[in-house]
């Protein structure tokens, strides 16, 4: 049985079993490995994609439920999205494994709230774990991408030589 999925504006066919979570269909069947596995239980956010614009944990969504839905993955951001440029500018990634999910959550946030407050960023991003602890730079990069000066404490975090 074939399921057709609308991913990054293209209709892709997959033969994966209908109960397969989108995460594994993307990674194993469709060759799109930017979306990562981290926990499988909606706790870490590494698998975050957007479904109809909503940040969604792809480990929780069987592909059978997705016919007609518009899916965007990290590959769909194109590499030069304002967030991706800010990520590079701030050297946000360490190991990098969580970052696709972080960026997809942040992109959904900015699409909804182009100028988020610190509290809104905290709320939108607290479902994405970064074990390397790049949170401070993630926060700063989101503000930068939103055209907002990072909070004073963030600016002070730049390394100073003494």
């Amino acid at each position, binding site marked *: 049985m074939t399921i057709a999925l609308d991913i990054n504006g293209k209709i892709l066919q997959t033969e994966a079993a209908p109960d*397969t979570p989108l995460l594994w269909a993307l990674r194993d069947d469709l060759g799109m490995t930017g979306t990562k596995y981290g926990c499988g239980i909606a706790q870490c956010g590494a698998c975050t994609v957007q479904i109809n614009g909503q940040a969604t944990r792809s480990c929780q969504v069987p592909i059978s439920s997705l016919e007609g839905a518009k899916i965007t993955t990290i590959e769909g951001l194109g590499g030069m999205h304002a967030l*991706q440029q800010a990520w590079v500018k701030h050297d946000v990634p360490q190991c990098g494994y969580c970052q696709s999910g972080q960026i997809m959550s942040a992109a959904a946030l900015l699409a909804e709230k182009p100028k988020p407050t610190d509290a809104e960023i905290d709320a939108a991003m607290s479902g994405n774990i970064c074990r390397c602890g790049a949170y401070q730079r*993630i926060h700063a990069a989101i503000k930068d991408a939103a055209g907002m000066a990072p909070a004073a404490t963030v600016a002070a975090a730049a*390394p100073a030589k003494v």
Partner: protein
Amino acid sequence: MNAPAKGFNAPTRRDLLVVGTAVVGGALLVGCSLPDALSTGGGKHDFGAFGPFVKIGADGAVTVISKHIEFGQGVHAGLAAIVAEEMDADWSKVRVEQAPAITNVYANTLMKVQGTGGSSAIANSWDQLRKVGAASRAMFVEAAANRWKVPPGEVTVKDGVVAHASGKSATFADLLGEASKVAPPANPVLKDPKTFTLIGTDRVRRKDSQAKSDGTAIYTQDVHKPNMLTAMVAHSPLFGGKVKSFDAAAAKKVAGVVDVYQIPTGVAVVANSTYAARMGREALKVEWDDGKSEKRSTAAIMASYRDAVAGKGEPKWESFEAKGDAAAAPAGEVLAATYEFPYLAHATMEPMNCVAEVDGNKCHLTFGSQIPTMDQMNAAKVVLTLPGAVTIDTLFAGGSFGRRGNFQSDYVVECVEIAKKVGHGRAVKLVWTREDDFMGGKFRPMVLHDVKVVVGKDGYPAKWTHRIVTQSIMKGSPMATKGADPTAVEGAQGSVYLKATPVVDGQLCTVESPVTVLWWRSVGATHTAFVMEHTIDQLAKKAGKDAVEYRREMYRRAGPEGARHLAVLNLAVEKAGWGKPAAGFTQGVAVHESFGSVVAQVAEVRLENGEPRVGRVVTAVDCGTAISPDQIAAQVEGGTCYGLSAALFGKVELKDGAIQQTNFDTYRVLRHNEAPQVETYIRPSVKAPSGMGEPGTPVIGPAVANALLAMDGTVTSSLPFVKG
């Protein structure tokens, strides 16, 4: 067995470009009878004109070969910057490639095996790569001098452009052919660090941020090879359990499952996809033999540690610090404190995984290999070949914090065992789920510290008695040394505070359990820094002195070895505005040296819903020469989060042997809204660089404890702070 570069004068170049060619020696190789085989398995390697660490393309672009894995610590950029600095290459065009596994070429000059650990990647490469860069530069200079018929001393290099005052200039690309034929100098002249133009500047930024922001960076999890199978393994639910019997009938009926095998660590299901492997494993029925497994609860294990301190059960003690007359009993009040630390999981963002292809005695591995030499040795035992014949393509790893490098190469060997059953060189990707990763153990050991300090009339320690009970990481390993396991006591052993104390008696008791333990980012310091720093604040309080003033006096008493601590403390205190926290916050300070670097932090803490919440954290570090200030700051930021996560929430508990935390719903970790704002200040230094991957981790825990002590007198005697 050596690996001479092609072409003329290869031996000279080799000697020059490869520091530490001495075939691997040292403790790590006990048990390997064929050290030669570690090198190349008889193969020859053609590294090109510039040796094994540098490649220069026809376009003049410089590629630096990293012998160290990049798992977040920024080492690729750091290593490349060392070469680029001495070479005067155009930094914007420098690329980094991962080295293959060839121990005698790419050994860590401190560890003597090819591997990344102990925050040593930059430190061990410093001299080696400076020489590589300087020699390569000299080759271009001589090529230009020959071409232009001018003295080499008059030739300059900047950003990959070689020039002469007469106006002549040429790029590395222009000169590549001639430079490749120049004999590298026996003793290339290194730069005076004062003239560095790249090192120490904010231009040294990561080379992998784009790939790690657009989803194209490839991790083990992302490897797909033609015809590849994916494997999952059913493991014993208890540590130390073995397969008694299993029934694979239902598993084999799952669509996509290809086969089921018993292997030494459990029962493996191989399938055409990750999802099928997972469903196959769920359908598997396994009976376990728990005869030798750990069946105690962690509470009972900790109780046995307390018994050891109380002298019950004939504990064996090994001294790690002894000074003065321990039998003497100086007069004074006694400060007694005990500290209990839980098992901690590394919980890397990418769970453990590996890809193996085995065909008879041939074995090829593709994964994030932290210690390739060890992984080669362990894989070779499974396929019955020489370690050097096992080839490894090392990929980015989604974190390690110590987990990927271990004496057994646990997940690697498991993958090789399965690939051997599959055979025919067919690729097998072993995937551990998050649950497998937690249940796979290799925890930071549980630890108990019992400290008694006799306080002299002046309020400072007159006698320090210290007992530590824990499992040993090193015992029984090829790296074991005689006496107290240094990884269990480092940080207490050698502490600047013990140097400032006239009488010291420190002893370690190691205990055993089937629960496996391992180094965890900053290793011994994960607990010793907490114990020493929180004890110091309690002593200061008892003496009625300010925590910073008390430390300053202790550092003075420690003599010359206290000088760096004093300077770093002073910098942190000055930048933080000690005594002037943000409204509603209380400050706490801590200082610790690990891996040759000294880190001081002042943390501002308040309680939110009864939980400590950390705001501003001002950090000062002395790590010798700072190659990338930005990445040092990143490691301090990340290390602080990693240490804070453990201090606030981290614990793995067993109930009747069964692990209670198997995913992020039960193993709470620090999240975005709980992260502190970390500022990093680096003391200028011309000393060789020391590590920064780990030293940022252990200081925040005691800084928070000390803030809580200052807040309301709370003494923290066990971690994590947040119970339940």
